[in-house]
């Protein structure tokens, strides 16, 4: 590769501004369960998220594309990805979820970011 040909390549400065461009939003969540009892597996966790959506927003909500990007069974923490137009729906569904297998539970949303890269700071 030629390394000393900057002048030609440098000429094109370009700038673009994107407003709310990201297609997805990312949530870092943590499921709080009372001590003891079964912990959901990754599939059960996703099932729980989808059922929360179905309860509050019906089949339309359950059809929202939600990805469980990471899930750690030990700590019950996960990173979810959802299309931006479904963020409020997903978030509210998680907030209003009160039970997992007839036991009380609570979703704690730790971070909400418009891009995956932004999650996990501080």
């Amino acid at each position, binding site marked *: 590769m030629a390394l000393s040909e900057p002048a030609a390549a440098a000429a094109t400065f370009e700038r673009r501004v994107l407003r709310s461009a990201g297609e997805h939003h990312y949530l870092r969540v943590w499921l*709080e369960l*009372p001590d003891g009892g079964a912990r959901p597996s990754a599939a059960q966790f996703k099932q729980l998220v989808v059922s929360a959506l179905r*309860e*509050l927003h019906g089949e339309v909500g359950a059809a929202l594309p939600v990805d469980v990007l990471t899930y750690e069974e030990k700590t019950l923490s996960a990173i979810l990805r959802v299309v931006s137009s479904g963020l*409020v729906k997903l*978030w*509210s569904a*998680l*907030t*209003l*979820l*009160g039970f997992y297998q007839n036991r*009380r*539970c*609570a*979703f*704690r*949303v730790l971070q*909400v970011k418009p891009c995956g890269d932004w999650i996990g700071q501080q």
Partner: protein
Amino acid sequence: MAGFADLNLPQGSDKKSLQALLETAAHLGYSAVALNHVIDFKEKKQEIVKPVSPSELFPSLPVVQGTSKRIKVLTRLTLVISDPSHCNLLRSTSPNIRLYDIIAVFPKTEKLFHIACTTLDVDLVCINVTEKLPFYFRRPPVNMAIDRGIYFELLYTPAIKDSTMRRYTISNAISLMQICKGKNIVISSAAERPLELRGPYDVANLGLLFGLSEGEAKAAVSTNCRATMLHGETRKSACGIVYTVKKPRKVEEEETLPACKKAKTQA
């Protein structure tokens, strides 16, 4: 903006569970909570007791997460009124009532809702979220309440517990929003267990479901709570009342003085 607050933690009798609630609230980032003592006049004769002193109950308060401050604990009295005679208690200057930081009423009928909004000296009006609204909200009393700096309280815990109550919560909230246009709303929990509490940003997001805008929803867990506390303080310490009256009186004097002079010269 002010810190986040949850103005409704049921006081209950169990100190240990209350401690757990406080710790969870602090952990979730609430910087102030109010312990709620509910008096329902339907159930026999109930005395208004002195509020518990938070400092006695909890020698050391938990630290709010992400800050170095301790959580602030207030006392609150909620009167469930189902008959106009119950209001008399509020009008009479009961010494114990004055001791509470926040006073709320839960009117059961339209007439009582009207009274609560227009004449009662309270800080909060609770909105029924567990059953179908027994009456329609009307604009005059709601506007009057907004002018008087009274806030409307919506609870979210019933919506977590049960699907039917969730529907009533949302539909009653939206009905209210159509009248009050998102102004003067406070969202609080009434959580009996730590797992029923939700974080302030989650609750603010829930506000969108209730028909609030993003700014209004965030205000419902922060600035509006602060305003309620200040309203309570003003009521408690009477000096606030002098303060608010001060300005209009000045204007009045300026206007009336020349009129008096005129009258004198004419006579």
